């Protein structure tokens, strides 16, 4: 039982790895949370900049005011209660007033607390320029002080009801009315808009002594401290800025748990290095504070494998290790997060299995032999099998709808295992479809493989248009318009029209010349036209089963000349502009792109595709020489068989597509595709030799909003490059050049190609 429990923990850890610390609340249409009537907007809902936060505030009220019971004359109950007086909350309040709703804004600290906490004189950008601000709150590029002054004036002019120093502590819904509790009062409202941002929840170390008076979790008036010993804990920008400022009049220890400062602004880094050189800051890397005492702190410093304890004499300590999504607060309100793995893994496994067993029994009717792991099930009537399958699937859907994420995983597996398990071939289908699945799914006299291509192309077209709208049209990004047009067109032309039709037409009407058209080796093998685009080793069949010379020549040219040249100029853009596997991920998988596994561990696992590449290479060699060395015959056959089942069915089909809604669309491309690995290795080499034309650069405007990293489907921490204005290329990452980070960045920080500042 314990083993099973820890196995489940492991599985959940993997499934959850895409979200990590940056998980957002689960949101439905119009930013409604899982609690009907409770809306979440602004920073908390993922709006990375003021302009987007404002837009959400405006839109959510427009939506609410369009509902039937938006405005009810009830003195005891507010039409809408807004929590948080930041950009989004204030704009929502202005709009609610405009629409004649009864509203109130509750603010924990002061108006626009987040922006008040920006460093003095900070320039606040009004990005992105492509969109005008929405609503009545003012926004333009301005200093922090000017911005806030403007906002205060607007609040006064509009007589907005904002109650400061009134943090919300709890909330319940009963009989369609929310009861909202603060330290001072209780409010009743029919709808609640939560606009509390993410910055108000400083992360804690959770160690003894942390609650002592001299330990702070925010930096207030740094100039007040003089000739003290001060400990700063943390390695982000706020910690570095604090350390640098404090070190001008004090001696500062800077403790950080990692070995380097990887996510800090270039400027901050320079100042930090200067202060270290001047002896004002002593960095203590790879260290963890273990406790705070009266006038000291204990720190454990990693030293190889062991740890050394060290006591620091200090007057004050600042723990500045970032802010958490206020998960506990959200939970206490009953709000669900977007990637929350709750439910029963066991139940959903059993239901899925029962569904397949049911189908196996049902298959007897169509010529299958019903069994479970060889155990004969022929004694069961086929209607019972069908009933079992239907009940199991209904069970998955029902538990899924009630919030069991494992149930959706089971259902997803059920669907894609069926699709790919049957596609293996007539008579070769996986259990439970063996002997009947292929025929059953070959509708209208067309083989299942044909319908599969139709479904694939249909999914790519439908969802491709949606993704194109999301990234290209709505964000006015021409690069993305072309990218999605390219992906979908390549699918239609090269993976559907040519292999299914145009190849035959070319033969029939002799567009390829009479000689080729009448050579059966060429003419009767339309499937080889997949090899026009799919290169070795993704499609090593180009070289197998006595191909026409034309295919051999093209295959060699494609793999060893065309692709390397393409890589030289475009990096791995094959994956994001051309390839069908990548294409499905970018289109059908687009809505789940933020779930891609992230972090160092996830990146490390990318070695797996090297194994696939080596295996593919070995199999290729074996097959090509088996006619010369007869002894290798069965080894060659076996290697192809293994590759077919493991790589071409499980790794490229069943597993990754099942995982689309849970780990994003790029599991195959990133972890297993041998062609991606081959291109990655080439691009890495070209980058190291400085031949490569491919890179992403950043200017100095990054605000650390995480949008770029969140949306990278291959899990690259783009933000850590952007903050330091480092070049991102294939020497240090497996970037596929999709440009989504460039498009997603609300600050126009990133761009392909040349560095755009002149300093």
């Amino acid at each position: 039982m314990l083993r099973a429990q820890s196995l489940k923990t492991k599985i959940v850890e993997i499934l959850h790895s895409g979200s990590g610390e940056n998980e957002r609340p689960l949101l439905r249409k119009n930013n409604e949370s899982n609690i009907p009537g409770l809306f979440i907007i602004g920073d908390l809902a993922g709006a990375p900049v003021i302009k987007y936060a404002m837009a959400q505030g405006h839109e959510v009220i427009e939506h609410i005011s369009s509902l039937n019971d938006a405005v009810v004359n009830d003195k005891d109950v507010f039409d809408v209660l807004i929590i948080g007086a930041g950009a989004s909350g204030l704009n929502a309040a202005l709009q609610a007033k405009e629409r004649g709703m009864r509203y109130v804004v509750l603010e924990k600290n002061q108006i626009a607390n987040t922006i008040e906490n920006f460093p003095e004189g900070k320039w606040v950008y009004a990005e992105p320029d492509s969109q005008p601000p929405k609503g009545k709150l003012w926004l333009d590029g301005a200093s922090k002080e000017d911005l806030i002054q403007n906002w205060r004036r607007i609040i006064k002019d509009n007589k907005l009801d904002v109650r400061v120093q009134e943090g919300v502590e709890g909330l319940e819904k009963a009989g369609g009315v929310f009861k909202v509790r603060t330290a001072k009062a209780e409010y009743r409202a029919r709808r609640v808009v939560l606009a509390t941002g993410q910055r108000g929840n400083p992360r804690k170390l959770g160690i003894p002594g942390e609650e002592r008076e001299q330990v702070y979790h925010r930096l207030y008036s740094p100039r007040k401290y003089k000739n003290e010993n001060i400990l700063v804990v943390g390695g982000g920008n706020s910690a570095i800025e604090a350390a640098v400022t404090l070190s001008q009049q004090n001696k500062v220890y800077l403790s950080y748990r990692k070995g380097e400062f990887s996510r800090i602004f270039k400027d901050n880094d320079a100042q930090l290095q200067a202060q270290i050189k001047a002896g004002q800051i002593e960095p203590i890397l790879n260290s963890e504070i273990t406790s705070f005492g009266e006038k000291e702190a204990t720190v454990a410093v990693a030293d190889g494998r062991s740890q050394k304890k060290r006591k620091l004499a200090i007057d004050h300590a600042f723990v500045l290790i970032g802010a958490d999504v206020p998960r506990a607060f959200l939970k206490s309100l009953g709000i669900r997060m977007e990637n929350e793995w709750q439910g029963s893994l066991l139940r959903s496994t059993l239901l899925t299995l029962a569904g397949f067993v049911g189908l196996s029994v049902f298959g007897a009717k169509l010529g299958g032999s019903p069994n479970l792991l060889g155990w004969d099930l022929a004694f069961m009537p086929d209607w019972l099998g069908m009933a079992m399958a239907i009940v199991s699937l209904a069970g998955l859907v029902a538990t899924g709808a009630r919030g069991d994420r494992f149930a959706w995983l089971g259902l997803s597996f059920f669907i894609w295992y069926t699709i790919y398990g049957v596609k293996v071939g007539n008579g070769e289908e996986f259990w439970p479809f063996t002997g009947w699945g292929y025929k059953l799914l070959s509708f209208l006299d067309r083989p299942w493989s044909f319908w599969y291509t139709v479904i694939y192309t249909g999914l790519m077209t439908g969802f491709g248009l949606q993704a194109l709208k999301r990234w290209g049209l709505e964000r006015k990004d021409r690069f993305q318009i072309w990218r999605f047009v390219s992906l979908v067109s390549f699918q239609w032309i090269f993976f559907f029209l040519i292999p299914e039709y145009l190849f035959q037409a070319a033969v029939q009407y002799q567009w390829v010349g009479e000689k080729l058209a009448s050579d059966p080796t060429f003419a009767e093998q339309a499937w080889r036209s997949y090899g026009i685009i799919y290169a070795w080793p993704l499609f090593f069949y180009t070289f197998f089963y006595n191909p026409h010379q034309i295919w051999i020549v093209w295959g060699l040219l494609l793999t060893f000349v065309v692709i390397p040249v393409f890589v030289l100029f475009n990096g791995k853009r094959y994956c994001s502009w051309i390839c069908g596997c990548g294409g499905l991920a970018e289109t059908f998988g687009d809505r789940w792109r933020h779930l891609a596994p992230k972090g160092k561990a996830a990146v490390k696992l990318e070695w797996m595709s090297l194994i696939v590449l080596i295996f593919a290479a070995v199999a290729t060699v074996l097959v090509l020489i088996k006619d010369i060395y007869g002894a290798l015959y069965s080894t060659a056959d076996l290697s192809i068989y293994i590759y077919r089942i493991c790589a071409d069915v499980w790794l490229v089909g069943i597993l990754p597509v099942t995982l689309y809604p849970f780990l994003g669309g790029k599991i195959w491309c990133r972890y297993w595709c041998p062609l991606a690995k081959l291109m990655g290795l080439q691009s890495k080499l070209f980058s190291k030799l400085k031949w490569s034309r491919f890179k992403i650069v950043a200017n100095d405007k990054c605000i650390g909003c995480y949008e770029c990293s969140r949306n990278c489907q291959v899990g690259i921490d783009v933000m850590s490059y952007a903050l330091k204005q480092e070049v991102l290329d294939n020497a240090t990452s497996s970037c596929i050049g999709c440009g989504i980070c460039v498009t997603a960045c609300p600050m126009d920080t990133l761009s392909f190609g040349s560095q755009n500042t002149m300093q």
Partner: protein
Amino acid sequence: MSRAIKGAFLLLLVMLVGASGQAQDRNEGYKTVAPRAGERCLVCRAPLNETDLVLLVRGRRVPLKRAMVDSFMRDPDAFFSELQPKGALFHESPGAEGSEVSVETSSSWLTFGIYAVSALLFAGLSGYRAVSRGLPAVSHFFIGLLLHLPGYLYVLTRPAAAGQNRIPAGLGKVPETRPPVPCHGCGSENHPAARECSGCGKQLEPVYASDVSRLT
């Protein structure tokens, strides 16, 4: 607009279901050719000699010992399956029944496919144009998608929107804002890429390259 997407999707589905060309059986008489050195029988794996034969099945060589020809012919698909690519990505289509689609009978599929690709192309062109000229991108994209060339021609005739939404030629996005820089002479605020003050005309040291110049 998501309705438009749903509509397009529905259209696609209707066409996919409606258009169903008929598959044809292909005949069974296989051509025979002479064996090559090293080839082995597909049924029993024994090396061939001159007296054995190789069938040409769907463009591939099927080496067979004479004694095994009958076994092969009893269930050619089963043995031949070994010479077919199989996987999630590609397949021999339409492989199942060993049938071959003739081009004439399936022209509806082909026509639809070509229609879809050209729709995409004109939609892309229209969307691109709309974005460049500050026009509503989504609606113009769908005009191109549904009306093809005429739609695109229509989009081409639209005048550009007034104001700052336009993107200068060659630039990927609208230009970015940066904090203005005050002039040392007169104090008026200037664009950080400016080379001279807009207030007094004094020479300025540009802090950034402008977005337009970074293209070149």
